[in-house]
């Protein structure tokens, strides 16, 4: 079984982003970029499936400008076998991403597609589900455990009330949650090896997908900042403030 993993280049999670003074967007100039943490978990899961014998090949795909090849190489260093970049000028909207991925799925015929549950920049949490609908495949979103069982997969999901386990017929879509695994660190020899792994570049036109805009970004603004309050010296003072100043007790 082949596993396809979709990976996205995003701002490093340690960086606090700033809004541009003209409110047109956030300022990403000279900001450290990285593999989306949920995508890293997705790659790790695919590689573990390969190591356990459940998967035969791990293919990673990223959609975006040339710079996203860096994140494909990171995924290859973590153990993926080959990469596909779909070259676009910007990062396309989720439905376009899903349509491009659907074409890759038609070509590659993976038994499982693993995506992150959300990207930490746009925070949309939708691409995997959209891909599932386009392909008419079942989905196990927000996965904290993935167990292949013959021609189906059991996925345990993190839901609002706790955990839920579903059985999905393969081929299926999985999106990762934080507790699915702890990704490994790439070792230097693996990083060197990754440079020689195959990486194909395609365009949306190659795949016959026309990108369409579904939204228009009108403005990006800074959120209302919270002011730091006061230090209280004791529990008694805290209780007094909550009762008499904030009046919430």
């Amino acid at each position, binding site marked *: 079984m082949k596993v396809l993993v979709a990976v996205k280049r995003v701002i490093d999670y340690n960086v606090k982003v700033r809004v541009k003074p003209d409110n047109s967007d956030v300022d990403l100039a000279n900001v450290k970029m990285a593999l989306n943490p949920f995508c890293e978990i997705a790659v790790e899961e695919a590689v573990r499936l390969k190591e356990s014998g459940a998967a035969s090949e791990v293919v990673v795909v990223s959609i975006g400008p040339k710079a996203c090849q860096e994140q494909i190489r990171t995924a290859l260093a973590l153990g993926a076998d080959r990469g596909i970049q779909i070259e676009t000028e910007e990062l396309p909207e989720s439905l376009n991403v899903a349509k491009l991925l659907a074409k890759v799925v038609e070509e590659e015929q993976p038994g499982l597609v693993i995506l992150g549950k959300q990207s930490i920049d746009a925070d949309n949490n939708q691409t995997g589900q959209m891909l599932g609908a386009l392909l008419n495949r*079942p989905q196990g979103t927000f996965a904290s455990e993935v167990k292949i069982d013959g021609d189906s997969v059991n996925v345990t999901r993190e*839901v609002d009330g706790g955990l839920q386990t579903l059985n999905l017929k393969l081929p299926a879509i999985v999106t990762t949650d934080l507790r699915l695994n702890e990704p490994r660190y790439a070792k230097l020899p693996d990083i060197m090896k990754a440079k020689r792994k195959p990486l194909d570049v395609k365009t949306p036109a190659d795949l016959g997908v026309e990108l369409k805009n579904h939204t228009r970004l009108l403005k990006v*603004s800074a959120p209302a900042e919270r002011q730091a309050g006061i230090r209280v010296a004791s529990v008694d003072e805290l209780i007094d403030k909550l009762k008499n100043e904030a009046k919430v007790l």
Partner: protein
Amino acid sequence: MAILIIAEHDNSTLKSATLNTVTAACQMGDELHLLVAGEGCAAVAEAAASVAGVSKVLLADNAAYGRQLAENLSLLIAELGKDYSHVVAPATTTGKNVMPRVAALLDVGQISDIIAVEAADTFQRPIYAGNAIATVQSLDSIKVITVRGTAFDAAASTGSSASVDSVSPAHDAGTSAFVSEEMAKSDRPELTAASVVVSGGRGLGNGENFALLESLADKLGGAVGASRAAVDAGFVPNDMQVGQTGKIVAPDIYFAVGISGAIQHLAGMKDSKVIVAINKDEEAPIFQVADYSLVADLFEAVPELESKL
């Protein structure tokens, strides 16, 4: 055209997240229809019919929808949704699971987790862990939207007497099946709706120590939450995680106990009315957003606080 709202429920009760979503939908248009899809959920439909502002309830009562499986539910919602201007659901794990499928089936985008309605086609949503707010306009004829509950007041659960119409289509994709669930049982209020939240982080040291926070929460009629670090370490279950990638809360008082205040955690609680932080490290970033900061060992401060309230 009317707006279709997807009710959040467990086949027996209507969840409060639905009421916040109704308020958001009210700002998009006048005619609100509420879809109750489930199995044996007639009581939910009855409750839905009295929610203020709702003029019609659609009841899809079928085994295929009993577990809210996204594969089945999305087929139903997309079929009904064709005739609406907006299809709106709470941004709960159910809404997040189902709605993007609906959007893709309708060949439209989804606007996730909105916090304000500027016009029927223009919405605000947080991006980058809430460090920026995007104003986005939908260019689609049908707008598929999920709503952040804490950003909208709850609609009154009474006041209306809408008709309840049964809708027949039973869609069973036949590709997914429910196996089991492990649901947290608690007599405390739901985290996302509680007026007091007491959250603990890695500083608690282990799961047993969360009992300190539980007794404080019980005294105040509140819920207990946690940081990702506390969940990852296995102190408490995943459904307690507050943050960018967990639950969003905005109670009257939020206690952050033994939590450092990473941006991902702040994303889930910084809209709380009053934030109290208890941390032994006076440099902890949580103090930059707290209204009342107490530099103290939590193992002394929390029991003292509990006993003096």
